């Protein structure tokens, strides 16, 4: 049987940065398994600019960003197998995978990093009713068609959901000569980054219709139109506002779901708040020697933080292999008022270098608010921001010395008025 110190499942930015960091920390026998023909993950289809502002202080395209990492692999002993699909991982950390070239493989791993990314929510998941013609695509599928396969999926488009992929696709389709009639967003605020709204919609005069949804798809063979409606405060469509828009394509940008089938099959529970496994400060999961990072843990909006999380898990793996990873925890985290989730879910102080970054998302738009961390009634730290948006992951750093002075317990994050 093949044997490795570390097997990384998924060669997107999360997996790449985990492997590179583990290598830098002295791990030598590393194997990355990637199901696609190339490394790079979802970045390969994101040919727009906007990646790496934080990590490289430069605006790169998706493929450029992942190339930086792929280049780093060259000077290392890290091995990669692409076109290779991981089927499952046993309790003994035996990785079962298949590929056309090598057939069926069983690989024994001392440590495993899960970095399988996420998938898009679909028409069924949001219960979009009406006819079932061709022409309803998730925004990511349309992106793949245009950017990787070189085909246009339609000419007149209505986009449901204002997630970043949808916004980027609005611009991309326009650039390719299609007419984007509208972007409908159920919520009274957008789920995309502000910069994307400006650069992808405003600059092209594409209307963003907040508090609007599609109530019906029309067309027997191919989409012929949609009925849209304004929704009330309970998000229910208001019949008086029904209006038909003719189009031949509907793109859905209605959210991403971490891809955790392998995680769950390995017996690792998924946290319903994140739809990913619960993790510690170095992204260790509840299964010894198994780590997770990137969109498989929680959906990120910026790849820079995906890479950052990859680094943490790479460090975790190195520590674990040296037998230095503490498995107990000093703190657990909780999402209080206004907060949807917090990652990591547990913290062990002896694994922390100088600070812990807590990633979280707010549940709604908060103007003139502050996020505070409490341990019991004690205020631990606070984070100010001009505005908190559900679309933008909050990055809450707390210094080690502050945490070290606290008794063990639960750290609760809440949104409060200033």
């Amino acid at each position: 049987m093949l044997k490795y110190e570390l097997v990384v499942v998924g060669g997107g930015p999360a997996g790449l940065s985990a492997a590179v960091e583990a290598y830098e920390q002295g791990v030598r026998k590393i194997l990355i398994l990637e199901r696609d023909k190339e490394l790079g993950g979802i970045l390969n289809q994101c040919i727009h600019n906007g990646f790496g502002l934080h990590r490289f202080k430069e605006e790169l395209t998706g493929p450029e960003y992942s190339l930086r990492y792929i280049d780093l692999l060259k000077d290392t002993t890290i091995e990669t197998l692409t076109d290779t699909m991981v089927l499952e991982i046993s309790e003994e950390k035996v990785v079962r995978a298949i590929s056309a070239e090598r057939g069926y493989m069983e690989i024994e791993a001392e440590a495993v990093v899960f970095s399988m990314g996420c998938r898009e929510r679909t028409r069924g998941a949001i219960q979009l009713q009406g006819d079932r013609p061709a022409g309803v695509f998730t925004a990511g599928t349309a992106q793949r068609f245009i950017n990787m396969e070189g085909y246009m999926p339609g000419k007149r488009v209505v986009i449901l959901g204002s997630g970043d992929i949808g916004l980027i696709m609005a611009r991309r389709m326009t650039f390719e000569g299609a007419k984007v009639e509208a972007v409908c967003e159920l919520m009274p605020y957008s789920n995309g980054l502000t910069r994307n709204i400006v650069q992808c919609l405003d600059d092209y005069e594409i209307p963003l219709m907040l508090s609007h949804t599609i109530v019906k798809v029309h067309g027997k063979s191919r989409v012929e139109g949609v009925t849209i409606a304004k929704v009330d405060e309970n998000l229910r469509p208001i019949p008086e506002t029904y209006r038909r828009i003719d189009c031949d394509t509907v793109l859905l940008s209605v959210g991403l779901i971490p891809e955790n089938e392998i995680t769950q099959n390995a017996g690792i529970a998924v946290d319903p708040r994140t739809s990913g496994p619960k993790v510690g400060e170095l992204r260790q999961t509840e299964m010894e020697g198994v780590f997770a990072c990137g969109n498989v843990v929680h959906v990120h909006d910026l790849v820079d933080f995906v890479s950052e999380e990859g680094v943490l898990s790479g460090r975790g793996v190195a520590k674990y292999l040296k037998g230095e990873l503490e498995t107990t925890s000093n703190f657990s985290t909780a999402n209080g008022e206004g907060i949807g989730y917090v990652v990591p879910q547990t913290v062990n102080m002896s694994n922390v270098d100088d600070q812990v970054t807590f990633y979280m998302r707010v549940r709604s738009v908060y103007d003139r608010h502050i996020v505070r961390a409490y341990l019991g009634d004690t205020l631990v730290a606070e984070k100010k921001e001009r505005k908190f948006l559900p679309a933008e992951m909050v990055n809450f750093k707390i210094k080690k010395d502050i945490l070290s002075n606290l008794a063990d317990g639960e750290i609760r994050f809440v949104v409060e008025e200033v």
Partner: protein
Amino acid sequence: MLDVCIIGGGVIGTAISRELSRYQLQVRLVEKNEDVGTETTKANSGIVHGGYDAKHGSLKGFFSAKGNAMYPQLEEELHFGFRQTGSFVVAFNETQEQELHHLLENGIKNGARGLTIISGDQVREMEPHLSKNITKALLCTTAGVTSPYELAVALAENAAKNGVEFTFHTEVRGIEKVEDHFVLHTNQGPIEAKVVINAAGLYADRISAMIGQDDFKINPKQGQYVLLDKDQSFLTDTVVFQAPENGTKGVLVAPTVHHNILVGPNSDYIDEKSDVSTTQDVISKILKAGSKSVDAINTRKVIRSFAGNRASSDRHDFIIGETAVKGFVNVAGIESPGLTSAPAIAVHVADLLKEMGAELTADPNFDPTRKPYQRIAELSGEELQNLIAEEPAYGRVICRCESISEGEIVDAIHRGLPITSVDAVKRRTRAGMGRCQGGFCAPRVMEIISRETGLSMEEIVKQGEGSYLLTKRSKDALERGGKDA
């Protein structure tokens, strides 16, 4: 000149075609769409009923009990997917309990097997996630679930192997009786046949009227469904019907052959035969009604909704037989339990042809079997190793949700029926049927169809004429030049 021309490639038409392929006959099946099983046969509950429900004395009662008994052997021969899960009709109160007794008596008369009435506790012992409020149930151990479109495909592939011709995109628009035979006028030119079998589903009344037999009408009666993710399969692995109350049938919660959970249908007459749209109102009602039977239905686990229309005739029973026009046979009004009845109806139609004077000589080369798919999701490590060594395409996973390999897709494309749509591949292999609903694999499935059939990417449809997926090359691709952009 054909001996027999069958109109319609649903489960009824394909079952008849396969039955007739046992004999030395010139048979052709014509279908207006691009594949078999694309209408009512693709959107129904998929239940192989026990045969207790349809009234004794009706054709429905007679054929469903007989058809049910034929499924195990059919599955052995054709491998389309059938599981004898058993079914419950559950009661929540005394009036409904009464109904269970009526059903039991009726079932015994129909010749249905495996029927008993059990207590609510016994029900929950078998299926712990069923509702605490169930007081009693009629258990039928011979009921099961099947994959109706895979059945139609399997029947058609096997019929084709045994010499039946299939022509798609061929719509019958008029029928003439000329002396002792028929001329069918289609959009693809005329077809001559001695015997015509009308298995046109929702449109069987129109076909029959073409030859002057307009003594029945088919009224479309809609049924909408929701399908839940496989991870909800714990809810039940037995089909759960609700006992009727005040004349209305409840909603069923049933496992599918592939371990998803199906909830539905409603039963409402609609105007247009081809209207298979879903509505939020009905879907909400179905979910509410369905949740009476089980602990809870998690609506976040819905992966898709869909609708199918029953070919409900104004005679309220199957219409099967030769008409006043000699040689013209109707197999019409085949609403539920038509799927269950299909194999028995097919045998009956063959007998009918004999009675009508056709010469049915057994074909010594008839082969009743169809080779099963190699499903990588079901193989052991060693089996996978051997398979991939022999055929590397089985090592390339295309649909990650359902673990479907390129090998399976290529196999499906080369089984004798022409493949031109993404949905045809989906119905055969399940690529695109999982939780991501083809978001990831559709482009790759299209590439494989294109490569294997020579169709261009733009020619490949989702399902049916006009359901194109791609409009043109992107500017970017054109600028980069050529096909490999």
